[in-house]
């Protein structure tokens, strides 16, 4: 009879490749756990509420509504967006909210599992994956809403709409990657979470969420450097069927995000014991 042997010791004498392999193996073996956690949280979230899923898009809708109002009333004049402004604002805030949730997901899943992390040994990757599941669930609801808008405002059907899920998935991967690197530190220090949320709310205005990139000025430079810009813009292009402007930068981001996602997974994996050690039970 062959038994699986585990060795725990000080040195973590594995290379990046071995760790990544172990991490991916755990992701596969814990697929049921990940689904179960996601299912549990989604069920629990809506069982005590009548409006249920509607809350998932009330926040981005409210933000967008404010901007639509500001624009219509002439309080704020934004650069021409090329598509009806409400569609621009709604799609921007919805995609933005997906990215922000993706950034926060690994931290919040890990945080909410504190009590079991300190007592039970299970594949921690399941927490990350369950976070992605929850995001996919919430995002799919938002995609339906987006599509409704497209047809409502007469933009009509484009074949590129079929690429929208891919684009959303890329946004998730991008956000999760950032989240994985932030998680260990932000669990140790609460400050990090606060800084991230303040930082992101500033960053939203340096991203073409509710207004397009201006033609000149410092804002143009900032927004063109901002790696979230091409994600939002390209996703929106898929939706409206317009030619993506920043496709090159977008592809660079994808090519960077995927290997970084793996590095993030490894970092997360080796950081967990240290976090558990410093975490109260």
């Amino acid at each position, binding site marked *: 009879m062959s*038994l*699986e*042997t*585990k*060795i*725990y*010791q*000080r*040195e*973590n*004498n594995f290379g990046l490749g071995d760790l990544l392999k172990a991490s991916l193996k755990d992701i596969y073996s814990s697929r*049921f*756990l990940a689904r*179960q*956690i996601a299912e*549990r*949280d989604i*069920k*629990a979230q809506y*069982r*005590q509420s009548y409006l249920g899923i509607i809350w998932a898009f009330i926040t981005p809708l409210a933000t967008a509504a404010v901007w639509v109002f500001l624009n219509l009333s002439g309080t704020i004049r934004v650069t021409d967006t090329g598509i009806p402004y409400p569609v621009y604002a709604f799609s921007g805030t919805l995609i933005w909210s997906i990215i922000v949730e993706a950034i926060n997901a690994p931290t919040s899943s890990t945080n909410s599992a504190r*009590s*079991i*992390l*300190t*007592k*039970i*040994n*299970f594949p921690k990757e399941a927490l990350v994956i369950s976070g992605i599941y929850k995001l996919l669930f919430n995002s799919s609801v938002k995609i339906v809403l987006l599509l409704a808008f497209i047809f409502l405002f007469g933009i009509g059907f484009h074949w590129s709409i079929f690429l929208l899920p891919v684009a959303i998935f890329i946004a998730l991967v991008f956000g999760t990657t950032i989240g994985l690197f932030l998680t*260990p*530190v932000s669990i*140790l*220090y609460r400050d990090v979470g606060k800084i991230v949320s303040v930082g992101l709310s500033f960053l939203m205005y340096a991203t073409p969420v509710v207004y397009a990139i201006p033609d000149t000025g410092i804002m143009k430079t900032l927004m063109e450097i901002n790696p979230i810009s091409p994600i939002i813009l390209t996703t929106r292009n898929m939706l409206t069927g317009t030619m993506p402007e920043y496709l090159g930068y977008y592809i660079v981001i994808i090519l960077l995000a995927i290997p970084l996602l793996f590095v993030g997974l490894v*970092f997360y994996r*080796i*950081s967990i*014991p*240290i*976090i*558990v*050690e*410093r975490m109260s039970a």
Partner: protein
Amino acid sequence: MEEKEVLVKVEGLSKKFCKDLKTSLWYGIKDLLSNLNGNQAERSLREKEFWAVKDINFELRRGECLGLIGHNGAGKSTLLKMLNGLINPDAGKITIKGRVGALIELGAGFNPILTGRENIYNNGAVLGFTRKEIEEKLEEIIDFAEIREFIDMPVQNYSSGMKVRLGFAVAAQMKPDVLIIDEVLAVGDLGFILKCFKTIDLILPNTAIIFVSHSMPQVSRLCDEIILLERGRSEFQGKDIAKAIDLYYGHFTNNQKNIVFTDGSLELENVELLDVENVENEIAQILWNGHLKIYFRFRVRNPKMEIPNFNVSIFDKEQRPLAILQENLKPSNFKIKNGTFEFVVIHRNIQLSKGIYSINMHVSKGKFNTPILRINDILKFQILHDKDIWPPFLLASTFEKPT
């Protein structure tokens, strides 16, 4: 008998902790960074750190049960966390073979809003079951937990006992090679505890168990080797369970005799054991079947007071009452002289089993036994015998031909 395979091997295991939160968090950041390049360096104590576990070694084979005892903060839980792979050691090495199950928290992953049935899946998933396995065992789990009636009720409305039963019912489905148990059996009613032990007895032959408990009867019932931890170090390690338990209790024996109640009319001046065999560590020793003779001298405030009733009772190390000595006769056969009086209580042929016992005294007066003085832990004594048994009495007996 052929030796079974070693499932757990622990060599020179150590772990340090930090006493200060802010410093601890900062060290955490440093460790995160140094972890990235393997962190091979020898680890020594940094400022404000201490060894929570230091240099623990043991081997555990299939079918064996190791007991970890020690008072609060001795490092038991830290050791378990390392064995369970939750935290990494700072020195040393653990090698574990096979599937590891941990009964550290029952009902992990429960969400209070969801029903018992849904939470069986949540808990099962956390413990590493697949959906198919849980579906197969669902009925068995519900029956074992004895909560069929409430299985579709939200867990937040369960009593704490029901929650624990459900958690244990799921955990009992594990077929681990190594099982780690941490004081979870302390909760629940007697029926539940008996059920737990039955389950553990069933899996013990195929499992290596590491058992942490403060309940010495449980430890002596299950374990065949003990590590007594004291400030992270192993103070005793071996197969002599009785000795380990004695040492463990030894940590608590230095408590002073305490007066629980007094109305001031009576004061205990002196108490000692007479005709003792030997005195070791200030504890008088008596041979089994010898005579227990306790000398008392009291000072009274009012020389004309009536001699009250004296109740002397014997407690074991766990403060369980074992016996009470017969009351003094009335009218009493001793008199107050110079404001004091004295007497000797004698119990012949004492047949308590080997171990350390303590004496409490309760003094009352009048028809209604109004209490006037109550003292716990007046003195301790030890019964010597070569036979080590768990029950409190070893009663002299003979086996004879039927007539």
